[in-house]
């Protein structure tokens, strides 16, 4: 069948005379979650892609650029179906977006089999950083456990001896726990992974109180964070035990924390590869233009990753002289990653995951707007631990 398709392709191209102009365009298919409560991240990412589009002047390698957005509804089978549609119907040249590992796990093979270049703008599926790495697979964000490994290091630096770990009982949640346990040198005095259906931590919070740790490591993204941090304060733990979170306090949900007046979040620490006040010209322009585009908000790291994803693709197309079909040249250009990243500099390992710094960030209240501010660099040039398993 595949052979037939390859043979049929030139034939179809000849027959399809009116689409000459369309073929000149460079099409990028973007799969995000734009429905369900999880759309809080997806909508920021969509806006960031649009900012990147504006910064590129709507062009890539001198050709007109078209972005096609699709919604995965937070379901792997829908994500896959949309990816098939983008590949087969819209005939996109690149695929990017993909917030969730399960959606990526279902969708990436479709794109890779069709010979497309795939850029994950969030999902840090660890298999793709190691055993399953692929020449056409790029990740412009991170591998799942990297950030929590940085957090473990930061906890050592801050002298935390006894740590309580709280996370969600699903794949990413477990990878976060594995990451922090890999680098944290003190004692783990307790650990609870709650099912995703839970929104009441009464039992776990009582255990935390009984264990009396010097710090609590938390992975509760999205609406779990909102509920958990509220209960943390109600139990009086905010006064005794500092919170250290990963992927739970970010630019997408800080405005919500502020709206709900959760003042105890100010001063808490988390780690990330990027912050809105990271000092470089590209970042300043991005943060300013994002606020103009999206409700005056300060972008989150999700938005930053989305911006870099499109810029990464643009760098590849530019290196190939605007010929997006020349996958080898595009890939080579992307590997060199010679573009203005919001991270300042960006470089990729042979598994096509970024090798990057991680920073300690603190929540501050600046000019009446809560935001994340860089405190120090925790680790430099960090690569995913499974990079050696990649046989590229």
């Amino acid at each position, binding site marked *: 069948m595949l052979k037939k398709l390859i043979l049929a392709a030139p034939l179809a191209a000849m027959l399809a005379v009116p689409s000459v102009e369309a073929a000149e365009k460079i099409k990028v298919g973007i799969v995000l979650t734009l429905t369900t409560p999880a759309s809080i991240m997806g*909508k920021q990412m969509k806006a960031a892609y649009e900012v990147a589009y504006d910064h590129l002047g709507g062009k890539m390698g001198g050709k007109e650029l078209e972005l096609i957005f699709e919604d995965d509804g937070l379901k792997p089978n829908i994500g896959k179906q949309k990816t098939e549609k983008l590949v087969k119907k819209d005939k996109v040249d690149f695929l990017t977006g993909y917030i969730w590992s399960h959606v990526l796990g279902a969708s990436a093979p479709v794109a890779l089999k069709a010979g497309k270049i795939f850029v994950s703008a969030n999902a840090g599926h660890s298999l793709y950083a190691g055993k399953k790495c692929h020449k056409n697979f790029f990740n412009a964000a991170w591998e799942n456990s990297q950030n929590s490994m940085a957090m473990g290091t930061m906890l050592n630096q801050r002298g935390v001896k006894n740590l309580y770990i709280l996370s969600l*009982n699903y794949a990413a949640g477990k990878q976060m726990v594995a990451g922090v346990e890999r680098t944290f040198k003190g004692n783990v005095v307790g650990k609870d992974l709650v099912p995703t*259906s839970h929104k009441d931590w*009464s*039992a776990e919070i009582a255990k935390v109180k009984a264990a009396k740790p010097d710090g609590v490591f938390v992975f509760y993204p999205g*609406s779990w964070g909102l509920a958990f941090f509220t209960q943390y304060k109600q139990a009086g733990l905010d006064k005794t035990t500092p919170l250290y979170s990963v992927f739970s306090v970010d630019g997408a949900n800080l405005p919500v924390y502020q709206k709900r007046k959760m003042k105890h979040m100010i001063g808490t620490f988390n780690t990330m590869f990027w912050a809105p006040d990271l000092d470089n010209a590209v970042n300043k322009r991005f943060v300013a233009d994002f606020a103009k585009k999206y409700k005056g908000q300060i972008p989150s790291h999700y938005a930053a990753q989305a911006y870099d994803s499109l810029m990464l693709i643009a760098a590849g197309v530019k290196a190939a002289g605007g010929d997006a079909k020349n996958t080898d040249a595009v890939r080579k250009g992307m590997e060199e990653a010679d573009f203005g990243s919001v991270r300042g500099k960006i470089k990729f390992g042979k598994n096509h995951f970024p090798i990057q710094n991680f920073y300690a960030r603190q929540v501050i209240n600046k000019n009446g707007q809560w935001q994340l501010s860089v405190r120090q660099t925790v680790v430099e040039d960090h690569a995913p631990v499974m990079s050696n398993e990649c046989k590229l």
Partner: protein
Amino acid sequence: MNYTLLAEQFFNGFQLGIILFLVAAGLTLIFGIMDLVNLAHGTLYMFGAFFASTLVAVTDSLVLGMILALPVMLAAGLLLEFSILRTLYERNHLDQVLATFGLILFFNELFLIVWGPEGTGINLPPYLTGTITLPGGITVPEYRMVIIASGLLVALLLYVLVSKTRVGMLIRAGASNREMVGALGINIKLLFTLVFGLGAVLAGFAGMIITPITQADSGMGESILILAFVVIVIGGIGSIKGAFIAAILTGLIDTMGRSFIDVALLQIMDTVAAETAGPAISSMMIYILMAIILAIKPSGLFPPKGA
């Protein structure tokens, strides 16, 4: 064994049980009396959470906002009953499941559009944010005490209503023998509307009082709905007493499982295996409980007479 922790977890389990009871009580009455499988009962819970959040924000008063929210929930519930659910009474269970599944999809989407993906929430006033220390060093958040107290009060009122009043007598009669109530010349339509309204307010009340703790987001009704189904099936459909006992039992077992199962498993297996099995088993415990009870008593613990 840490007895303070044990006592605190007992308290937490009881509080979860109270919330489950408030949702399950309405569900079991609506099932028992109208023979209506209402999947959208979780939606009524969500109504309570969102309406109260908005009213508390508007009035800037927790008490006032919550009191004002009650009639709004009642109105919303009755509107739903008048417009759609009423036509479902004489339909079979399958039609009811499907139509109310449609209601869930609709309202989840609607609330997502109106309140945004981040949902909404209620901030507690300073006088409720502290903790209380009980004898024995047991500390509990003040607001959780409020939940227990108000939940028990509502349960008591419900008990009085059902067992001491004429309406309650009809409700009890309806739950065990529907035809008989009709034969007595009672306006059955009115009774049904009344029961549905009561159920809507109970579920809404539960959603409202839990919101300061869990916050409100679209889709919050479904996880509680499934738990509430487990509760009424264990308790016996149509039985308020059964719902109460099953709710407290479920709340306690769930909380105790989350608290102690990992420690217990460490006694019999290595750390890695226990860490995998612990959360898995604790999230399945109540379903296992339900399977065991139904395998022994297929109509639940307290099946109403005649059912």
